[in-house]
């Protein structure tokens, strides 16, 4: 075994994070670790590295071994030796894990102590002009190149195990595909093992040999990738697979979701409050992880699981209302002046001649990778950015929902104060205002008592619901959504998407939905607009565009979307 943990319990700040995990990484395999945020997957990685933050007062029991060395006991020097010789690490954000003050070359030669080998390594991970790149700083590289450099550093010491913690989450989907195949090539070449941590089952499906599904600090299921995806044996895995949004998810229906976790965690299975199969025993007794090659921790038989989609009533997508467009953009251009110190370094054409019309009540999705201008376009429609050229006509009000609901809600104001702000122009009495706030909260499925809470007391999904309530408490003609679900776990994301569709149907407003995810774009829009480099590459009805893409760029994008092929 390259690395193994046995009955590992970890508490941080007194809260149990891992609650009895047993797992081993075999030589030469890519082991995927899949879980929602807070499931403890990153803490497991840190424990393996012996790098749990001392500030969090970690309490650890069980055994942790990497290459035969105990990473819980023993000297710091021994742990450092293991990290240097046996481990390579790739983090989510290479901008923060590369040293911004050091040239790339020096950061690689720190490990290799040899410039020629550094050049070789860079060429190996697919960085062109490697000799020249040694002299650049991290900020001069694109996100994909940075992650390649990070990968080069990770394999430089010829490690026996690479720990990759969400290495592609911050990357565009086309770049993600490249980094995934690079990781697999490196594994084949160097014969090292990879512990691949991700929240996305489909990404894990692309690259891993085995998958461990982590839920609330315990393994729910562990097995060979193909078998686990084809025949999940734990209701959580099955639910995740079912609620995953793909290019083939039916458009007309309500999106399948997992119910939210309710109540405090008891002595039993942590999943039992969300589980459709739960019986009394599940609440009181923790199921052990049993099995040989394909292990599962569940008291019930999965074949009894009800089909989640049958309960879903058909959602009303609703055709666009006839009438003159609520948004009419013609030849919109938007330049940003780039400065390099005092000098004008040039202009960035964020939008370069964009035409777009949105009919009343229509749902339009805008898809593109980072830098495509999709968010700028949304801000131009909202009137937050004045366009450099072209004409913009917007009739009726626009409201916007941002990617990060946490930072779009003023942290020191209560939810009630934030919602009431929208009502000020209506000159309502205090009682009427309170009534409207209560109604708005009920509509998004939150109790009225939330009005006195502050944003940080709410979970990520609740915050995004509040942001939606603020946008729609006075219905706008157009609701603008800027990747509202990309920071949410899959099961929460689907319920927020359902809510947006529901609000659109109830209020008859048009929705412009910006996303980097083609599957989400197809589900949220009657029409998809594909953007790249500040202009529109292709536009068409959602299903047509996905099944018969015309533009080359759309084809590339579609090919890179990770899908679970069973």
């Amino acid at each position, binding site marked *: 075994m390259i690395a193994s943990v046995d009955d590992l319990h970890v508490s941080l700040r007194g809260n149990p994070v891992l609650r009895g995990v047993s797992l081993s990484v075999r030589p030469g395999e890519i082991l995927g670790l899949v879980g929602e945020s807070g499931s403890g997957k990153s803490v497991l990685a840190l424990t393996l590295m012996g790098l749990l933050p*001392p500030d969090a007062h970690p309490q650890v029991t069980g055994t942790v071994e990497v290459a035969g060395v105990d990473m819980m006991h023993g000297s710091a020097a021994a742990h450092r030796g293991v990290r240097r010789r046996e481990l390579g690490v790739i983090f989510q954000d290479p901008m923060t894990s590369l040293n911004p003050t050091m040239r790339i070359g020096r950061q690689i030669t720190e490990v290799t102590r040899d410039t020629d080998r550094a050049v070789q390594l860079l060429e190996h991970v697919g960085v062109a002009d490697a000799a020249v790149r040694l002299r650049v700083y991290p900020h001069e590289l694109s996100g994909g190149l940075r992650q390649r450099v990070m990968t080069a550093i990770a394999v430089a010491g010829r490690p026996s195990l690479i720990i990759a913690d969400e290495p592609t989450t911050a990357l565009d989907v086309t770049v993600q595909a490249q980094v995934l195949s690079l990781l697999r090539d490196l594994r084949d070449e160097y014969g090292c093992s990879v512990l691949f941590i991700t929240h996305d089952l489909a990404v894990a499906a692309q690259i891993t040999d085995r998958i461990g599904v982590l839920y609330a600090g315990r393994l729910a299921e562990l097995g060979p990738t193909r078998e686990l995806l084809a025949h999940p044996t734990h209701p959580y895995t099955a639910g995740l697979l079912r609620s995953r949004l793909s290019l083939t998810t039916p458009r007309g229906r309500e999106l399948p979701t997992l119910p939210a976790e309710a109540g405090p965690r008891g002595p039993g299975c942590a999943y039992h409050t969300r589980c459709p199969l739960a019986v009394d025993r599940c609440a009181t007794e923790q199921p052990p992880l049993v099995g040989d090659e394909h292990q599962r921790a569940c008291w019930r038989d999965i074949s009894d699981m009800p089909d989640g989609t049958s309960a879903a009533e058909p959602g009303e997508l609703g055709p666009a209302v006839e009438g003159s467009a609520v948004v009419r953009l013609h030849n919109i251009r938007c330049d940003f002046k780039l400065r390099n110190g005092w000098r004008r370094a040039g202009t960035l054409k964020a939008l370069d001649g964009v035409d777009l019309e949105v009919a009343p009540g229509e749902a339009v999705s805008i898809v593109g990778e980072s830098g495509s201008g999709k968010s700028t376009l949304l801000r131009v429609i909202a009137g937050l950015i004045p366009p450099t050229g072209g004409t913009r006509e917007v009739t009726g009000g626009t*409201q*916007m929902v941002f990617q990060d609901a946490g930072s779009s809600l003023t*942290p*020191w*104001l209560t939810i009630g104060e934030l919602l009431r*702000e929208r009502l*000020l122009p209506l000159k309502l009495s205090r009682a009427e205002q309170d009534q409207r706030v209560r109604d708005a909260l009920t509509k998004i499925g939150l109790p009225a008592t939330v009005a006195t809470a502050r944003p940080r007391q709410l979970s990520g999904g609740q915050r995004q619901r509040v942001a939606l309530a*603020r946008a729609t408490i006075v219905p706008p003609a157009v609701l603008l959504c800027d990747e509202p679900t990309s920071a949410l776990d899959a099961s929460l994301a689907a319920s927020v998407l359902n809510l947006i569709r529901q609000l659109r149907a109830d209020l008859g407003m048009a929705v412009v939905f910006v996303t980097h995810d083609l599957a989400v774009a197809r589900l949220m829009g009657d029409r998809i607009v594909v953007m790249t480099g500040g202009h529109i590459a292709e536009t068409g009805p959602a299903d047509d565009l996905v099944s018969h893409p015309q533009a080359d760029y759309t084809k590339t994008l579609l090919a890179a979307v990770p899908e679970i092929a069973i």
Partner: protein
Amino acid sequence: MSDAAVVPRRFGVRSRTPAVHNLTLNRVLVGLLGLVTLVALGARLLAPDDPIQPVGDFNLPPGSPGHLLGTDMIGRDLLSRTLWGIQASWLSALAVVLVGLLFGGLIGLVAGAAGGWVDNVLMRLTDLFLALPGVLVAIAIVAALGPGLVHTLLGISIVWWPYYARIIRGEVRALAARPHVEAARLAGASRLRILRRHLLPGTVPTAIVTASLDIGNVVLLLAGLSFIGLGQLAPAPELGADTARALTQLLAQWWVPVVPGIAVMLLSLVANLGGDALRGLLDGRR
């Protein structure tokens, strides 16, 4: 799993002081800030004697009956003089910091929220004042208006507010770049409302911490100016001035200059520790 199975064990790096101890310590230190302010306000009640009239023998050493800290060269009670001196120094420092906070804060808030040319004009104006040598301006004002504590305070205040303007502006610029301000604009909030409700409250923690750390600086500057004769006029008690006037006695009766000198040091220490503790408490809450 039962809780007993978990053996508490520090992992990896040396452990640090548990956070809860820091919390208590921080509260005590912040409490000291309040205590000193109370002492300064209550000097009239706390001082056993009149600070200006001689009440005993000359140069009595500390510990003399009736005069805990001794008396000075003309027989005034040192404890009473020091307490009144603390009042003069501490309240003056509070006044300077408060004026700086209000005036500088307003400039910074407007500059940071407005941006563009308003920001440029206000900040270049701030730079202009920042470039003035503080001590010289105070001397010039005292020379023009005549010596006195109020004139010295005026001089210090003129060069003090720009720091606050810069800090608050920086904070507002950072806040204004957050999506919540964009969201408030979209929600239809007026400029004034955004300023008042979505920007101002975010600057309060920084402003309070900066100000409390700054009190120590002003206490020291004020004592220094008084030391060279630019502060409180002769009979009235002031810590810096008292230290300076008795300096010739340092070898013969050390306590006469040292007692007010130590008071200055303690005030400055309390202000700094209190400010740091306040920062710790406010950071912990975020």
